[in-house]
């Protein structure tokens, strides 16, 4: 009896410890797999819709469809339960920084300044920027400037861009020198609204957003103006953005992206929503 009691007690202690460890592991896993994801919207109506009942013809619906499916696929591959929030671009980076969001998807360009504050996943696709405007406005400015309209030579113009974007940052940097008026809008669709309302002469947008808008019924009468630019911080690679300290999450997301690319899921998602698979 004296011999058996300590053995039984030892077994019980080991079993209890194992249970506690397993419970802690399950809790930590469950906690780690709850993710809050921000997806950029292209139209203010999409904020209130929060991913439901967004008509296919709505401005930027195709890009939102791509973002939505890609992020859900990433979440599925990293075994995470993701709560998706549809927000304007300006809320994504501060939301990541404050901890409101764990992952952000919104054609976020990777710049040296942002790299100091955020971590970036592997490449999603590459992007450049291009002016959008009415053909008549473009001809008028070309006559006034004595040359075709180009973003790097444009002067004395009102240019709208999405708030918090690299395009807005660029405009503010050159505004004084080139006598430009930078108009910040919450979403790309609102930059087109500004053109339509004659509050702006041109909108400076990422190419996909620009294409999505001008090819939709929302922006009839507007088209790309001048050549696209990828320098001056207006073009490069776009990524999913994360907090710098979420190293394991970044690696998991990168693995998921690689898998999605390797098995053709990326191409299928793109083809489902977008006419060309530009990555």
């Amino acid at each position, binding site marked *: 009896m004296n011999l058996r009691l300590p053995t039984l007690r030892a077994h019980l202690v080991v079993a209890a410890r194992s249970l506690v460890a397993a419970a802690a592991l399950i809790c930590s896993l469950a906690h780690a797999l709850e993710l809050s994801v921000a997806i950029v919207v292209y139209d203010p109506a999409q904020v209130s819709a929060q991913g439901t009942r967004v008509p296919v013809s709505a401005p930027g619906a195709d890009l939102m469809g791509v973002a939505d499916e890609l992020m859900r696929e990433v979440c599925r591959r990293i075994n995470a339960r993701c709560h998706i929030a549809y927000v304007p671009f300006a809320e994504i980076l501060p939301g990541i920084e404050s901890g409101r969001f764990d992952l952000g998807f919104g054609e976020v360009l990777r710049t040296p300044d942002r790299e100091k504050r955020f971590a970036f996943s592997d490449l999603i696709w590459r992007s450049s920027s*291009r002016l959008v405007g009415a053909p008549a406005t473009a001809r008028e400015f070309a006559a006034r400037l004595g040359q075709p309209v180009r973003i790097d030579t444009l002067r004395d113009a009102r240019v709208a861009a999405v708030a918090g974007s690299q395009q807005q940052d660029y405009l503010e940097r050159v505004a004084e020198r080139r006598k430009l008026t930078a108009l910040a809008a919450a979403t790309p669709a609102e930059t087109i609204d500004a053109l339509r309302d004659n509050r702006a002469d041109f909108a400076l947008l990422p190419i996909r957003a620009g294409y999505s808008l001008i*090819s939709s019924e929302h922006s009839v009468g507007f088209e*790309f103006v001048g050549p*696209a630019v990828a320098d001056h911080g207006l073009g490069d690679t776009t990524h999913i953005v994360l907090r710098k300290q979420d190293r394991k999450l970044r690696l998991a997301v990168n693995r998921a992206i690689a898998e999605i690319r390797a098995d053709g899921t990326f191409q299928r998602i793109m083809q489902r929503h977008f006419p060309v698979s530009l990555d």
Partner: protein
Amino acid sequence: MAGNAPPRRISASKLFGILAAIFVLIFSAVVALLALDQHQVRATAERLQEETVPEIIRYQRLARNLDQLNHEGERVFSASSPEERQQALFLIMLVASHPSILEHPKAAAIAHDAERFLGETSRLSKSDPTVLKARQPEWMRLSKRIHLLVDDISVQGANLATVDLDHMADTMRTAGLKLLGALFVVGGFILLLFLLLRKYLIRPLQRIDHALSSLDVEAAAPEFPHTRLSEILAVEDATVQLYKAMIGSEAARRELELLANRDGLTGLLNRRHFMLNAATEIARAKRYGHPVAVALGDLDFFKRLNDTYGHGAGDVVLRTFANMLATSVRHSDLVCRYGGEEFAFLFPESTVDQAHVLVERFRQHLAETDIRLADGLLVRITLSIGLADASHVTLETALQHADHALYEAKRLGRNRVIVAPAAE
């Protein structure tokens, strides 16, 4: 010989230690060279994976985007409505704006030309649909330029991998040659090591083994050719020393044997040794049925000689008689000083008659010999002999018979040979 200086000695452990160190150095150098190649292959593989493959993918994407541009250009001409044409044009603008095209000067230029031409075509076609047909040939030329550029870019992308793979193949080929060289170096070194081991260790050890296994006092001293290894020299020296020690031991043994078996004054066999050898000879004769005879001889009036001329004279007479016997008996015959002035004989393979001839010769020779004493005096002495057949009796019995015959010879006047009667 004095001019030949002994070769300088080398320690085997030092020699083979130096050889091992040289081998390690050479092998390390070869391994280092191979490691360098391996590093190059790894670096090329990493570059292929991290730089070249992404670059190839980039080229492929550029080619695909240009193809897309071409495809949408076709759509501008084949569109059934201005809206559809406009959609195609928007896509052309999107593709032409992609960074992969912007950063490639030729692609950017051709995309810009295509966008401008197709935009103009689309705009003009709104008022005059015949423009489409009129501008089709120019689009074909532009489209052909795009196709050629796509081909160039595809080939450039493929060549990127070819360069890296060629470099990797060259490095692997070089590594293969180095490996072959290393094989020869290692093989050569092992062969050299084997030859050196054979010459300086195995052969000397075999010689030493042979010398040790055939070491004999009857054989000549072992001789070894010059060798430089101090350890081998030490063993060879030890072998020679062992041989010398054996020779010394053999000499001592022979000396002791002589002392044990010979009479100190005359040098003849002593009685104990004679009895041992004679018994053996008689046993052998009986076994083979051969004849054998024994005899006992006694110098006549020897005591009187001693009393007259002194014991020194007696010793001279005994030595002289012993020398005479030593030169007269056959090699197979045994002669011993049986005691005082008495001598015993054994004649193997001899009948009594044959032995009688011999002992008679001894007696006669002694009787006619002048013996010069130490003071120059000449004396003569005679010998009485009793002879007996030992072919069918024991040694003791035969000697007893001979002793009786000797007694008879003394009784009949000395200086004669009496043959014992044949045993019943």
